[in-house]
């Protein structure tokens, strides 16, 4: 569309390069060159952009391993025919799949192939001069004319000064300006502005490449660890201390700063009527190597910086402090057990695994719920408030072999009941034991006794260090700035010509002007009028329609083709 609007004979840097003839030369090099030309063409870039948009869609339709592995498992169980095929085709990890990566990598190759020649071209254009004044102004989208009493040379020098002067943006030359003596008393000025437009465009695209590189660097250099900390306890920043630890292939574990972090207390507040969460604050003590312990807080949206890493508060719950004594009177288990909240009133689920400490004892598994504020509903119990106003532990009892001695790592939140038997009452119902803080209850089947000592809070912390985030942010902001410049900085060329005339009625000098803009430019006509009015040496008449014959008259016409 722009091509049709551009006057002929102006196919320099302003115009788009004509389509290269795509005649494949014979031989491998020729084909490679042809493929490269295709890949770096705008048409293929457009196609790849659309493909990228389409390829990103399945990730919102099908569960993704990286975000919710349990949903992927459920999906595979539900779709036994399609599931394995989708899995093979990478639909459960779309954003790391071969086809998704291929699209964005091709897009970036295409981008680089397109941008690099443009950078070279633009670097030349930045040193270049505005194009010479065209002989005829007839076909330009914006035109104007006027009369002046001054000599052509004076008029043109004045036009050059007006064009050079900063306009709107202080201290920045508006136009690059050349004055031409065209002979026979005719002078002209050519001016160009808006190199920023192409600069912004190139900066935007190059910043996207930088962004991709920074993200990739972050993938290689980052580490992330998750740890659950009970109030009154702490942990040290070492890989072995984390419940889960994940790192990029270029990360060096010995670079972990060995700070320690202890959870002193945890505060939570909830809306009294809707019970929705309002605030979570973890009060911690941070001890960095060689420094005194420092009190600090961690809140949602306010991570703590420790040893170069960021510590996020990702979850919280209750960890009942339990002590189990076996039938021989030995303490077989003692300590806080984190229970995982299942709903907004913190009905929490957990498992206690009690090993055999004295000879001849069975291993014991306790599984059940913690209710922070328990209310009896018929035969069952439920929680009505997330705060521990009347906490109650409801547990069932299993005994036998927990599988602790096999050496296979176990999920601490589930009980493998394959080699366990559940304690039951005489009428075959599972035995349920109820515990409130301070209670000690005898376990059934002579297994021993359990004491509910206290109910401390715990927090789930997420530690992450990605040294590239600063670069990612810097490139993203550079891209934003470049984008704004490329879309909003007008690119214009103006020409003004002054020549003497013998017709002295309206002033001895005829001034004509033309303007050309790249793309849509609503301000072009106003700009031409402004420059022309200042050039003819007279402020425009206060009324819009000066009477004919006034010297210094300006008439601009719009001729958008």
């Amino acid at each position, binding site marked *: 569309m722009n091509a049709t609007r551009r006057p002929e004979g102006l196919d320099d840097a302003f115009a788009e390069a004509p389509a290269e003839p795509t005649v494949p030369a014979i031989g491998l090099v020729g084909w490679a060159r042809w493929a490269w030309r295709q890949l770096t063409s705008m048409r293929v870039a457009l196609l790849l952009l659309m493909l990228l948009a389409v390829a990103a869609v399945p990730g919102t339709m099908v569960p993704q391993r*990286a975000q919710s592995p349990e949903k992927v498992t459920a999906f595979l169980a539900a779709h036994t025919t399609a599931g394995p095929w989708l899995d093979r085709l990478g639909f459960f990890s779309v954003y790391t799949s071969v086809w998704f990566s291929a699209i964005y990598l091709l897009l970036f190759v295409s981008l680089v192939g397109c941008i690099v020649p443009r950078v070279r071209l633009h670097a030349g254009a930045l040193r270049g001069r505005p194009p010479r004044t065209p002989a005829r102004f007839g076909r330009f989208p914006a035109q104007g004319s006027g009369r002046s009493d001054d000599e052509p040379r004076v008029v043109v020098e004045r036009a050059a000064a007006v064009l050079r002067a900063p306009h709107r943006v202080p201290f920045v030359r508006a136009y690059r300006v050349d004055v031409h003596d065209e002979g026979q008393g005719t002078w002209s000025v050519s001016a160009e502005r808006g190199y920023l437009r192409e600069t912004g465009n190139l900066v935007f695209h190059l910043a996207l490449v930088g962004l991709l590189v920074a*993200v990739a660097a972050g993938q290689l250099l980052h580490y992330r660890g998750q740890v659950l900390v009970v109030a009154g306890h702490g942990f040290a920043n070492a890989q072995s201390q984390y419940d889960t630890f994940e790192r990029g292939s270029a990360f060096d574990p010995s670079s972990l700063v060995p700070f320690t972090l202890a959870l002193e207390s945890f505060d939570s507040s909830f809306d009294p009527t809707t019970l929705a969460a309002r605030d979570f604050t973890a009060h911690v003590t941070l001890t960095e190597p060689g420094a005194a312990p420092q009190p600090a807080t961690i809140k949602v949206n306010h991570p703590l910086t420790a040893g170069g890493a960021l510590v996020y508060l990702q979850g919280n719950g209750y960890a009942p402090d339990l002590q189990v004594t076996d039938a021989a009177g030995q303490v077989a288990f003692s300590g806080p057990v984190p229970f995982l909240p299942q709903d907004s009133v913190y009905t929490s689920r957990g498992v206690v695994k009690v090993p055999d400490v004295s000879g001849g004892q069975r291993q014991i598994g306790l599984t059940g719920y913690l209710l922070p504020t328990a209310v009896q509903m018929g035969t069952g119990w439920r929680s009505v408030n997330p705060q521990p106003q009347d906490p109650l532990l409801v547990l069932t009892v299993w005994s036998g072999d927990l599988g602790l001695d096999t050496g296979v790592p176990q999920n601490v939140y589930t009980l493998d009941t394959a080699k366990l038997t559940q304690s039951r009452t005489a009428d075959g119902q599972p035995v349920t034991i109820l515990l409130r803080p301070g209670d000690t209850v005898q376990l059934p089947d002579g297994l021993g006794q359990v004491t509910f000592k206290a109910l401390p809070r715990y927090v789930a912390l997420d530690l992450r260090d990605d040294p590239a985030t600063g670069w990612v942010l810097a490139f993203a902001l550079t891209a934003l700035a470049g984008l704004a410049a490329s879309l909003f900085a007008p690119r214009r060329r103006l020409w003004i010509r002054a020549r003497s005339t013998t017709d002295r009625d309206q002033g001895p000098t005829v001034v004509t002007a033309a303007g050309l803009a790249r793309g849509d430019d609503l301000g072009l006509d106003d700009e031409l009028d402004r420059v022309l009015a200042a050039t003819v040496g007279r402020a425009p008449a206060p009324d819009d329609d000066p009477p004919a014959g006034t010297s210094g008259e300006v008439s601009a016409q719009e001729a958008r083709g």
Partner: protein
Amino acid sequence: MSAADLSTLLVWFATTAFTIALLAWTTDLARIAERSTARRSAAAPVAEPVAVGAAVGARTGSAGGDRAAVTPPAPLRSARAEGIGRSTGTLGVLLLLAGVVARGIAAGRWPTANMYEFTLVGVLVAMGVLTVVQRRRALPFVAVVVTGISVLALALALLVFYVQAEAVQPALQSYWLVLHVGVAIIATGVFTVGFASSVLQVLRDGREAGRSHLDRSWGAADPVRRALAGWKVTGRRFAWLDQVPPARALESLTFRLLSVGFVLWTFTLIGGAIWAEHAWGRYWGWDPKEVGTFIAWVVYAAYLHARTTRGWSGRRAAFIVWVGYAVVLANFTVINLVVTGKHSYSGLG
């Protein structure tokens, strides 16, 4: 009356005002169609071929000629309908603004925390942009589309998305609630007006070119085509299209709106990533909402590229705008209500 109740009442009033504005703009549009048809039939029977011929000439681009060819000697608009449309539209914007402010006071925070509030502010921005765009010239069709979408969105908000005004959960307690969500809403409002303008552009383009998909046989579906025969873009029902600015002026308007929208959308992505880094410990995690925002960004980027690609500018680029707007809407509704992700803040069960 509490501030929350007052807010709801004001939103209902605003919806009513917008409905009246919608009726006024529709009347204006119908009046234009009616009068230009009347004028055409009052003129010689050869009037229509001449008009079509002129339009074709204008499209191939004779400098300065198109405006004269398609602009009739006098305006055909209904001044009264336009006056009602403008004044009730402005009144609605003011009422909605008051409603949003009252909502913020009632909740004791910036009112962009759930779908109800997002819709309210989004409609406010769309109608505000419409008022600004219409400041100099009336665009009844754009007004009908934008006001229509706004009335539907407000009704949906009041009847489906409504939740009580209250404080927000810890993850939303951040100034990014103002910046990230606020800019996302403004971008959505701007995209809405840009979409309306691109629809108008395509219709006008079809009429200028004198071509309709209803002219050719649809094969097996031909009965459907015959049933729709009255809705040819070249036919009388679309005579009002002769009154709207030329397709290229509309294309330029669409582009300017979408340029602004795209920059705002880019900021939404970046701001969202910064907030995600603060709240969730990662700047990008392919959460469904992040993916949706990314897809919309890529589609609008494709539009910007299509505009400068030979063979893709004009109509085809406008179709990409429609896809982009559909993605923006789906990203707001489907992703919030159907898909579970970290952005499930609708507050609806």
